[in-house]
């Protein structure tokens, strides 16, 4: 009993008194030998578990892997939730964010964005049975979005009189629409396309409302002031655009042959705004 108590005390003390402080992040990462990349893990095809190996894979993951490779370090993925993205980065728990992170002026005040490696259209969707046509049709109705996301802010901004209901994760949002708990959702086009396909086969097909609510460039999130890391990441991205690797990643997860069947309409370029 005494040894157990002493051991417990020692463990508690050790856990509390670990060291702090870091200087330039890029140097830190290289010295540490790993790049900790925050990603969602629940957003196909950007970051989702491979059904066989249960490894997290996807568009976001591949971009992070490319950055890690260019830095000559190992990639370490950290699964985080949508509202936790920016806090996790700001508190230093991840080095970079490759997590469906859309640019907004408020976010740009808190963190630094790399050049856009993906451009996402934010769409509204509703059940086919309700026969809605445009996002404005959702005025006065209940619309689901992820807590703390640009979709939620966008819904409030662009749909008059809307009542947003925010959930902690994407599966809850889908379930809410399918089960009639909300009348619409606002979510990225990508997530929507995959889900629409699945929903076609189910009892509750959904339709995407036109036009798009707004277009959102996504960037790799990094802490402000880490100039060395930011320019290095942009350098890697530019190289990937030039070499065609960026196009390859797009085609692998989103192009013809995948269930999304999309064409790449953007290039990697600095985010304006």
């Amino acid at each position: 009993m005494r040894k157990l108590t002493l051991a417990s005390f020692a463990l508690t003390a050790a856990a509390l008194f670990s060291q702090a402080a870091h200087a330039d992040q890029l140097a830190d990462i290289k010295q540490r030998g790993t790049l900790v990349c925050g990603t969602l893990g629940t957003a196909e095809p950007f970051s989702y578990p491979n059904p066989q190996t249960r490894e997290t894979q996807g568009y976001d993951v591949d971009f992070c892997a490319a950055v890690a490779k260019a830095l000559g370090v190992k990639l370490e993925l950290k699964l985080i939730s949508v509202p936790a993205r920016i806090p996790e980065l700001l508190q230093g728990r991840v080095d970079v964010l490759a997590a469906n992170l859309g640019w907004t002026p408020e976010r740009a005040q808190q963190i630094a964005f790399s050049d856009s490696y993906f451009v996402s259209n934010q769409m509204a969707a509703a059940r086919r049975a309700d026969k809605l046509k445009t996002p404005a049709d959702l005025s006065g109705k209940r619309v689901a979005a992820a807590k703390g996301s640009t979709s939620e802010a966008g819904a409030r901004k662009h749909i008059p009189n809307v009542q947003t209901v925010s959930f902690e994760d994407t599966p809850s949002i889908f379930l809410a629409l399918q089960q009639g708990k909300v009348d619409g959702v606002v979510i990225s086009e990508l997530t929507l396309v995959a889900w629409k396909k699945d929903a076609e086969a189910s009892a509750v097909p959904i339709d995407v409302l036109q036009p798009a609510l707004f277009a959102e460039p996504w960037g790799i999130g990094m802490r402000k002031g880490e100039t060395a890391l930011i320019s290095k990441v942009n350098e890697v991205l530019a190289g990937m655009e030039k070499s065609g690797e960026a196009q390859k990643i797009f085609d692998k997860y989103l192009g013809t042959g995948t269930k999304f069947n999309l064409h790449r309409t953007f290039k990697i370029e600095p985010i304006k705004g």
Partner: protein
Amino acid sequence: MQPLDFSILLRDDAPQMLVNGITLMLELTGFAWLLAMVLGTLLALVRMGRSKLAEGAVGAWVEYHQNVPMLVQIFLWYFGIATLLPSGLQMWMNRHGGEFIFATIAIGLASSAYMSEGLRGGIRAIPPSQIEAVRALGLNYLQAFRHVVFPQAFRIALPTLINHTVLLFKNTSLAMTIGVAEMMYATREIESRSFKTIEIYLLATAVYLGISLLIMAGGSLAERRLRVATR
């Protein structure tokens, strides 16, 4: 650290969200508590009886609700069981605050298991000779329960019941995960819109602590009032 700026709580939507949040939290607590007490009493009553089947059913009910996390129960009700209902009923619920209804049901039923166990402990503490004596005087089973057993059992079980009432109140904070715009949900919304974490967290903490302590103090008062001088 920046100085605290509580004015953020008075701007934009914040006051409205907070008022709604507190109202919903209290309503959720009230309805769930009623459900838990009524059902808990019924279950304790059933368990007093002689039917082995009823005893087993209640036992299973209690075991299930005590061994599955509250969050999982809420999900199971709102996203799972809800889909098994006839679609007409589902649509009606969706128009009329379905998430509130399911949160109430989930939290109320879970608490009913604990309340019934508490009452059962109280009932067991009463000497059977009392019930025999009362029956001998001509009262039937139900009358015996109402006039003799339940008042005493309730008094004995009061500390447990108060404890589980506080837990029920705390559990309402989990309803935020299914979109009930109660206090915790409002807190997180205000946090994500204003980035003023400490201020809103302090307010929420004060509200939760205040009401919990109120319930506990009320319980102590009730205990003292009901205490009968025993030798």
